[in-house]
């Protein structure tokens, strides 16, 4: 009993010493290793270690792709079979473990997506750790892309613009019906929206 108590006290003392040393050391990285490994300045890195996750909507991403936003890179974190089945145009298939090898380039904007919030968040954290400053996560993942871009229900002032965007990616936009407003589940598209501002017309290609 006395031996056990002495052992427990010893463990407590060891934890206290290690905790106090952690306070003195501050960061869990040796200074010489931090200097060697750091691609960006220490101040910038500190700001990026645990950043809030920036998100982007499916419609915003669609606009970025359509407009050819400079430096845009879209990474699909789902497994390769899901990627083969369907993916966002211009997306590259990447495993989570491959992300640390994606080194930052000036002016680059990375958008991550999957169908798993945790995977997205971890991917964004990893990219921030290797120095990426502009990392966005697609809100709602692939499901949101399908719902908002490929098969959107459009209404109001932005209906024409969204319909045009959807058609650019081979989507099938449809006008909102009273049932949609009442929250009734959607069935097949009922009406295709024609738009005067649809500079691409009905494009018969599906991007994903």
């Amino acid at each position, binding site marked *: 009993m006395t031996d056990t108590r002495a052992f427990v006290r010893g463990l407590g003392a060891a934890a*206290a010493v290690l905790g106090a040393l*952690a306070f003195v050391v501050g960061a*869990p990285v040796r200074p010489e290793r931090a200097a060697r490994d750091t691609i960006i300045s220490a101040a910038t890195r500190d700001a990026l*270690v645990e*950043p809030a*996750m920036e*998100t982007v909507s499916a419609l915003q991403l669609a606009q970025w792709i359509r407009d050819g936003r400079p430096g845009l890179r879209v990474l699909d974190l789902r497994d390769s079979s899901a990627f083969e089945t369907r993916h966002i145009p211009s997306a590259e298939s990447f495993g*989570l473990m491959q992300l640390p090898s994606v080194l930052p380039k000036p002016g680059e904007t990375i958008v991550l997506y999957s169908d*798993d919030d945790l*995977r997205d968040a971890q991917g964004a954290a990893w990219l921030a750790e290797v120095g990426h400053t502009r990392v966005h996560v697609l809100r709602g993942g692939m499901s949101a892309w399908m719902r908002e871009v490929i098969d959107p229900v459009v209404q109001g002032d932005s209906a024409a613009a969204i319909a045009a965007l959807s058609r650019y990616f081979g989507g099938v936009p449809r006008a909102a019906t009273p049932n949609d407003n009442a929250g009734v589940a959607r069935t097949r598209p009922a009406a295709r929206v024609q738009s005067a501002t649809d500079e691409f017309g009905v494009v018969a290609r599906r991007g994903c």
Partner: protein
Amino acid sequence: MIAPLPFDFANGTQPSLAGALGVGIAFGWCLERAGLGSAPKLMGQFTLRDMTVLKVMFSAIVTAMLGLFWLSWLGVVDLARVAVPPTFIGPQIAGGIVFGAGMALAGLCPGTSCVAAATGRLDGLTVAGGLFAGVLGAGLAVPTIARFYESGSRGTLAMPAALGVARGTVTFAVVAGALAAFALAGRIERAMAARAGAGRVRQ
């Protein structure tokens, strides 16, 4: 992947699943050896008669925290590869309340209910069944509660960033808090035992 283990549990490959099984067995064994497969033991925590849960959990937290800090400092573990679940303030507070109420009612949490079920305890089997029913129900309810479920996202927020202090400071504070809690738990246990003894003498 869940660092420091070289497994990508999410991809479902056989080595990853085998790794997950090994981790699960080790976790269950530790819980059982700590006596946490017993609902009365867990209820002792709520009544302050048995502080085992606090001691075991705080020991695990301190061990993991110090281990990760110093293994990272030595260059063995890359903290960037450790999964940090995203924070959703409101939904997680609501989930915590539901979880806490369920634990107080059942006397077991998900991990300990599995341990209790594995050792043949009927209460463990019941709670584990309720657990799976709850998971299924919550999953089916997600479309209905989606707006709340996804509200208040704060990204991968951890205490150093939230408090604006170094990781070493947080590590030290948690270790100091744990040691103080251990000392206080011992005093509370002795006081409760003395009170129970005095009650028996009066009877």
